């Protein structure tokens, strides 16, 4: 008895209610008309026949990937999770087959991919159930977790993506042939649906940050106040031994300021403003640095000065 109670609670927690999508299949819609009339001064009443039809079953399956953005993972990770919600938008209980589909355009292939049904807390944990299908009452949904292991990554590309989908397919079939008055026929609106989630390995990437120093005794800016802008750039993430090529930084001189001629500096070393032999220039409204190749964990800077107009 205690076990039975536990099962009921689990089901209620697992399956969320949606807003009503319609009258439940099998509902009998009954109509009867009544008339009143006068004849020879006497009021009489009559009722019509009773007209009845039965609401047919609509199958309408939907699945949605729920993570807000690509889920960042690392090479060699185990049991990484993508979150989906499968919904029964029909007007009858439905059994739904769940299947994983790997998109061939992916950069890597996860292994040991499985689908789990959430126990109702919205978080993957040991209480969730490995599933290949779910039974959903009408107007309900359920959270699913797609789990997979991320392979060791030997490639030199900074970012890799894996596109992994769950396809949800009804186990109901449309009623074949002519309509059967008085019986529940099945009408298919959406027999299946698929949505794709993304695992992304961001092994290393380019990081750039900009900060300003205002040279003013009262910390306020006045006409003529000098401001130094410094852009710090480096490899983020797993930077050791990594290289990023063809790094180009550009920035616009802020409105209300004027560029201080000859103030460009890369890693503290002056650079000329002209488009010439060095790797930086400024045309008065925009500065540009061709930083070339950066490697490892070294941080670099690119700085310029402006004065408030």
């Amino acid at each position, binding site marked *: 008895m205690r076990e039975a109670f536990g099962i009921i609670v689990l089901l209620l927690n697992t399956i969320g209610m949606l807003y009503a999508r319609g009258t439940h299949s099998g509902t009998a819609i009954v109509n009867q008309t009544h008339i009143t009339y006068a*004849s020879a001064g006497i009021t009489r009443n009559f009722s019509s026949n009773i007209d009845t039809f039965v609401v047919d079953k609509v199958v309408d399956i939907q699945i949605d990937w729920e993570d807000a953005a690509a889920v960042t993972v690392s090479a060699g990770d185990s049991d990484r999770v993508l979150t989906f919600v499968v919904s029964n938008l029909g007007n009858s209980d439905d059994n739904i087959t769940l299947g994983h589909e790997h998109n061939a355009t992916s950069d890597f292939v996860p292994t040991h991919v499985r689908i789990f049904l959430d126990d109702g807390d919205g978080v993957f944990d040991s209480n969730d159930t490995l599933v290949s299908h779910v039974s959903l009452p009408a107007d309900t949904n359920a959270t699913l977790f797609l789990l997979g292991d991320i392979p060791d990554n030997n490639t030199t590309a900074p970012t890799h993506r894996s596109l992994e989908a769950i396809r949800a397919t009804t186990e109901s079939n449309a009623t074949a042939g002519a309509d059967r008055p008085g019986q529940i026929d099945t009408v298919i609106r959406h027999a299946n649906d698929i949505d794709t989630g993304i695992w992304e390995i961001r092994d290393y990437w380019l990081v750039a940050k900009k900060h300003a120093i205002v040279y003013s005794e009262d910390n306020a800016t006045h006409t003529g106040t000098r401001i130094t802008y410094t852009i710090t750039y480096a490899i983020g993430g797993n930077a050791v031994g990594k290289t990023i090529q063809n790094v180009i930084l550009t920035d616009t001189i802020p409105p209300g300021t004027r560029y201080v001629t000859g103030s460009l500096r890369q890693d503290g070393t002056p650079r000329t403003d002209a488009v010439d032999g060095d790797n930086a220039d400024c045309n008065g409204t925009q500065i540009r640095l061709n930083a070339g190749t950066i490697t490892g964990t070294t941080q670099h800077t690119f700085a310029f000065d402006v004065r408030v107009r």
Partner: protein
Amino acid sequence: MKQTLSALIATALLSITAAYAEAPKSPVTVTTASYQLVIKKVKTKKGKIKKVKEWVKATKVVPGTVVRYVDTVTNNAEAPLSSVAIKNPINEHLAYVAHSAKAETNATITYSVDGGKTFDVPAKLYVTDKKGKKHRAQPKQYNAIQWVIAEVPAKGKVKVEFKAKLK
């Protein structure tokens, strides 16, 4: 023996037929029927396929389907019927389609939001929300319709109808 039995059966059949013919016909009959719109493909004389809308008996109904109800009042008597009020409740799973109530003849059409206890014109129908605030009733909140017809002629028929969408 065989002939005697046949004669008895024939006599019995005659009696049943006579009894049926003598049953008094109701002076008034009223019927109701539900229909749904389908699109059928028909072949024109020129051999082209044309789509035609047709109201057929409502059988394949799913949420969102518009159902058309047609009520027919038949006066079987030799005298006209006067002040005929036809009341059709709207099933709780249906939402009345605005302006769809009609009659073949002049009729005063009113609606109810209290299950058919009272009827009035739309401008005078109000419902109270959960906070106790009164609002003008929306057509989908009507739960009965009434047609009042001054007279149904002797041996005549009158049809009224309305449409409602399955919730």
